[in-house]
């Protein structure tokens, strides 16, 4: 399963990068969303997927899933939520201010000498 998951994660990263490289701001932000999904699944996979029980104490259970990656993922999820919310508002403001969501129109090189 871990190998399958690795491939799946690779696929998510591929899709994410493809989206990030496109011109539309929305697609880019969606890309970052996929990126964090991939990241979180990767963390989980790196902890190993063959735990038999959730890491919540229960009598008679010894084979718990690795709790560390889960804790890390939780932290990461919250942080990416914050970043996503921020970028959404930024995208929204940018669109209203600059009038486009096409990144290729936001080069700004004309300012340079």
């Amino acid at each position, binding site marked *: 399963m871990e190998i399958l998951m*690795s491939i799946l994660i*690779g696929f998510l990263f591929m899709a994410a990068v493809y989206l990030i490289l496109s011109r539309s701001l*929305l697609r880019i932000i969606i890309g970052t969303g*996929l990126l964090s999904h991939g990241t979180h699944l990767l963390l989980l996979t790196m902890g190993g997927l063959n735990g038999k029980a959730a890491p919540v104490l229960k009598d008679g259970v010894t084979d718990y899933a690795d709790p560390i990656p889960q*804790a890390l993922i939780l*932290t990461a*999820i919250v942080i990416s939520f914050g970043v*996503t919310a921020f970028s959404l508002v*930024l*995208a929204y403001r940018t669109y209203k201010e600059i009038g486009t969501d096409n990144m290729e129109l936001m080069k700004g090189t004309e300012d340079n000498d």
Partner: protein
Amino acid sequence: MSLIFAIFTPILIALLIPFLFKRVPKIHTGWFVLIVPVALVSFYATYLPSIMSGSTYIDELPWIPSLGISFISYIDGLSLLFSLLITGIGSLVVLYSIFYLDKKKEKLGNFYVYLLIFMTAMLGVVQSDHLISLYFFWELTSISSFLLIGYWYTRDGSRFGALKSMMITVFGGLMMLGGFLILGILGDTFSIRELIAQTTTLATHDLFVWALVLVLLGAFTKSAQFPFYIWLPDAMEAPTPVSAYLHSATMVKAGLYLVARFTPIFAVSEVWVWLVTGVGIVTLLWGSFFAVKQTDLKAILAFSTVSQLGLIMSLLGIGSIAYHVSGDLVTTYTFATFAAIFHLINHATFKGSLFMIAGIVDHETGTRDIRKLGGLMSLMPVSFTIALIGSLSMAGVPLFNGFLSKEMFLDATLSLQHFNLYAMDTWGILIPIIAWVASVFTFVYSLYFVFHTFRGKYKPEQLPKKAHEAPLGMLVSPGILATLVIVIFFVPNFLGNTFVKPAVVAIQPLTYAVPADVGFTIKAWHGFDSIALYMTLGIFLVGFVLYKLLPKWTAIYQAIPSKLSLNKMYDGLMNFADHGTNRISSLYMTGSIRSYLLYMFAAIIMLLASTLWIKDAFVISFDNLAPIRFFEILISIILVVGTLTILFTKSRLTAIIALGAVGYTVALFFIIFKAPDLALTQLVIETVSVALFLGAFYYLPKLNKHEKGKEDRGFRLGNFIIALGVGVMVTLIAISSHSQKLVPSISQYYKDTVYSEAGGGNIVNVILVDYRGFDTLFEISVLTIASLGIIGMITVRLAKKKGDRKIENK
């Protein structure tokens, strides 16, 4: 007064200068400044007797002793000679400047501060026994020279010249520092004296030659040797007192000093002999040849200085052959060193006076263009006399000190035939020939300088001012120098014994222990069997003919293609710095985030792929894997389908909802992989996120609106290849990492202690609030900050209020 304190005196006094300039406007600030070099020259003069008897002095001020970095002032024959030159000529120059620079019109405060900084720097250079402090003062001379050349900073020429001189000399300085560091590492000391003591072991090391070349780069750039001389003519934009002081008498001689000082360390290498002699002799010829072409008085003198510096440099090179020979030949070659030092002093006297005269002419007529000048002899008789003395000395005519050293120079070049290093006995014959040719040109431009200015027809209509003799005060300094020119001719050996011999001891410590050992005497007459005598006569004869025929042959200068000139190369480099770099930069700094990301991802893929390949790091192991169950495959398929939907949909609503679906699928994964907390959180967050997405993109245009048509196949293909690469790398490394769990995880500890020590049951939650609660504390701060930013974005809109002022954003 300790020696170190003496070095820093000028810079300390400099702190008072702006104050004096402001508060005592009635007295020319120069008078206060004058006290400094006069006091110092008398101070250093007191060392003369003991130095003549062969003793040395040392004084140390630690700067960073932990790293072995100190200011060490070391006074021996060589450094004392230079110190006296710096302070002596310095006194005359300051005196001259008092009359040259107007106390009302000029920013004297700045001028004298720079000049005093320079004085400290120069004293430091010639007295430092410590390599790092030598470098420190060396760069300080470059900087003060920069400020002095740029003194009239509104002139384009000043700024150009200042930058040019700084670029070239600082470049040399940096290279020199590299050489110093190599020496320091090889010898495990930064002290020059200690390095001299171990020169034979140093020379065996591979890096030794590199140190040598790097140090010589410093010397050659500073002393305006070929091909680095190009900054010196442009440095003539400085006020004339500066040209006389820095760019003829002292700073440019720092390179000569450096060569002399390092001769005991480097002379054991053949490379040194060849480089120093060769570069010197080429510079001599080059400078003298191009001096004739110049039309600006100061430019003639600048090229003449270049050429004379080359002459002294080549003498030092010939002198260093003494380290390669034995017996009588040692004296033969140390004679060149003796001549070098003697000529160095002579040059300071006659060139200093000539610069001051050029300044006087400029000051009194308003121009330095030799084509407009002429016939000033009767109007400015004193100046003419001084100029004549200086020029004839420069030309090597008897009755003036230049004759003596020129003869010695010719003798020294002839001595090369005795030496067969890399066929120097055969090739070496070229050197006297070049020396002779160069001396002819020297003769020509000397006459050209003095006679074209003072004789011929007076052309008042071309002069901005009505010419008349300079005020007495301005003539004092050049007058003193001109007097010295004659006095030295008549009592050369006083000078030789007092100044030259102690310096020679410092350069040739293996041969001579005390100044009294140096057995040379300077004679004006060597007898009829001296080849140098006939060479000199030839110079006068040919030189005079060429001078008379001047207009006939100067056309050859036009034949030299200007594009090949070194100045053009410098301009080309600077042009590259100004514009070429911009062109290069705009190739990749496009402002398009996509292209930046493309480069970045491409680099990441390449780095990772090559590391995986080179290190053979890809490992796949099928042990310890979780089984694949049916619904896991099902969820995976949903995930893939959801992702593909995002990729291919044209509707933004679909894309957002598909993203949500992917998020829920991830939550499903969390459930089946036993992570209920994650699943719960992911579900709630995904819901809120989708709501936010919808809220924020409510107003936005249709997805792909801009991309239709424009998004060509190449664009997509590029994106796809890069994306694929990233995906593959992530997968490969994930598989490798998972297959190489080299150390068991620490997680067992949490399972063991969560109830007993942390008083909880949900391990993940306890980790979050307890074991790793610190993460959580700052995780919620991230959220807090994000909300602040969002408030800021929504409420603060400077762009609208002020209009789009581009003040800070351009």
